[in-house]
């Protein structure tokens, strides 16, 4: 594989896209939202269980490319147990990473496993794939009823 391709499709990403974690519905969730990228047909639903402002459980279902699926899977792992504010802060850091310039330093201590998606910044057209689950999570947290649509 070429270097930048190996960046984009790291083992961890392929693993999460083939065997996504938290890939199920949460019955009677406290919040949920649907995200849709009409350009590529990606569709994701994020479910939340909240307890005292903490994301006690997070799960998702949907179909999409490897990047969006892996991103959703990694996200659910990353935000579980975090407060709404912490989840939001993590999204901001994640957003900065995937929209940054190739070679920019990655805040690995805060991003943890999410840092495997840093290769996305070399493929600007794929940024939406990586951020769709996060936008959908935000919508669920803010209990927006409408479908999130990224175009």
């Amino acid at each position, binding site marked *: *594989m*070429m270097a930048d391709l190996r960046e984009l499709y790291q083992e961890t990403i392929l693993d999460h896209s*083939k065997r996504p974690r938290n890939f199920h519905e949460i019955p009677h969730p406290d919040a949920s939202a649907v995200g849709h990228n009409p350009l*590529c*047909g990606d569709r994701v639903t994020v479910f939340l269980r909240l307890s005292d402002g903490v994301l006690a459980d997070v799960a998702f279902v949907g179909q999409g*490319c*490897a990047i969006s699926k892996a991103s959703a899977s990694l996200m659910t792992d990353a935000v579980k147990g975090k407060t709404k504010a912490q989840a939001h802060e993590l999204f901001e850091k994640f957003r900065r990473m995937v929209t940054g310039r190739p070679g920019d330093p990655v805040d690995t201590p805060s991003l943890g496993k999410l840092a495997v998606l840093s290769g996305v910044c070399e493929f600007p057209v794929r940024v939406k*794939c990586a951020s769709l689950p996060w936008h959908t999570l935000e919508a669920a947290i803010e209990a927006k009823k409408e479908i999130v649509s990224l175009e």
Partner: protein
Amino acid sequence: MAKPAKMLLNVPAIKADFPILQRKVRDRRLVYLDSAATSQKPKQVIEATTDFYSRYNANVHRAIYELGEEATREYEGAREKIAAFIGARSPNEIVFTKSTTESLNLVAYGYGLKGKLQKGDEIVGTVMEHHSNHVPWHFVKDHKGAVLKYVDVNDDGTLKIEQYDELLTKRTKIVTVTLCSNVLGTINPVKEIAKRAHEVGAVCVVDAAQAAPHMPIDVQDLNADFLAFSGHKMLGPTGIGILHGKPEALEATEPLLGGGEMIREVHLGRASWNDVPYRFEGGTPNIAGAIGLGAAVDYLTNLGMEAVRTHEMEITQYALDKIGRIKGVTTYGPKDVKKKAGVLAFTIDNAHPHDVASILDVEGICVRSGHHCAQPLMERYDLPATARASFYVYNDLEDVDVLVAGIKKVQEVFA
């Protein structure tokens, strides 16, 4: 690697005409397989447009001075070339628009919405249309109460042609169909469809966006009433499109744009219109675009549209053989190249088309992924998305070999 084939077109010489094909993408030779989205431009077209701007830029039809005369002569000369290219009886049957999309909107608005259509009149389309041949007709339904009906597709990607017999009624006023599908590559029997439309007193509107660049078109033989296509898909510039109309069809169409050029006399509160086709060309037109398209038509005519079509059939056959044979790859649309243009939609098991396109991109290969602006068709086949390779005069069998190697790389990643 492919054997150097006995191709009708001299592809190495053609490739040399396209400056962009000399560049590299991610350090690889550019293998451009997305001509169905937009084609690349030969230097002859690029030079024709720069020549206009650098030597005789002036507005058309208005200037009394020499530059303006030259600009008008070249602009109208392009109209004549395009008329000849599709076998029109007269250049007056050729309307310059900005795109296929605008051409189809002009017909839907000027003939459908503002024309003779009555509430309850019927428009028959197909499920394989591009969004630009769906949405304008939605407007006619929403604002005029027209009834929309659709011909379905068979599983092999051909139209259920016998359905026309059920759908066409005395109330059918417009039948609209693509000559060639931008997803399946299906070439539809438009001559037969136009004939059936005429038998019930309807007009036939043809989307030739994927046909005009790739096969000979004879509007007299097809005998449709309107035919639309885009310059940018046939080696020409963006921002220039064509609407061909029979004289009586254009006469029955109201203009979309009011303004300069399209009028004869203007008074406060009223105006009389210019003749067809100028009636439809309100405002300063895309002069450089029209001249560039004229040069593109010269280029294609020089190659010969029969030769272009034969060349693409050969590549498509080769691609169907090679790609269709890879285990885990599904191709869509007709398998018989006599019924198929150089458009090949495919999916790879366990790999999303978006990932396919990204991996191919790293190999220097440009393919499209997504719904290809044909969501109703994708829904019909229950496909969220596909990848799509499309071929043109500058492609050869080696480009297909590169694609095949790329597909195998995708399969390695997602094994």
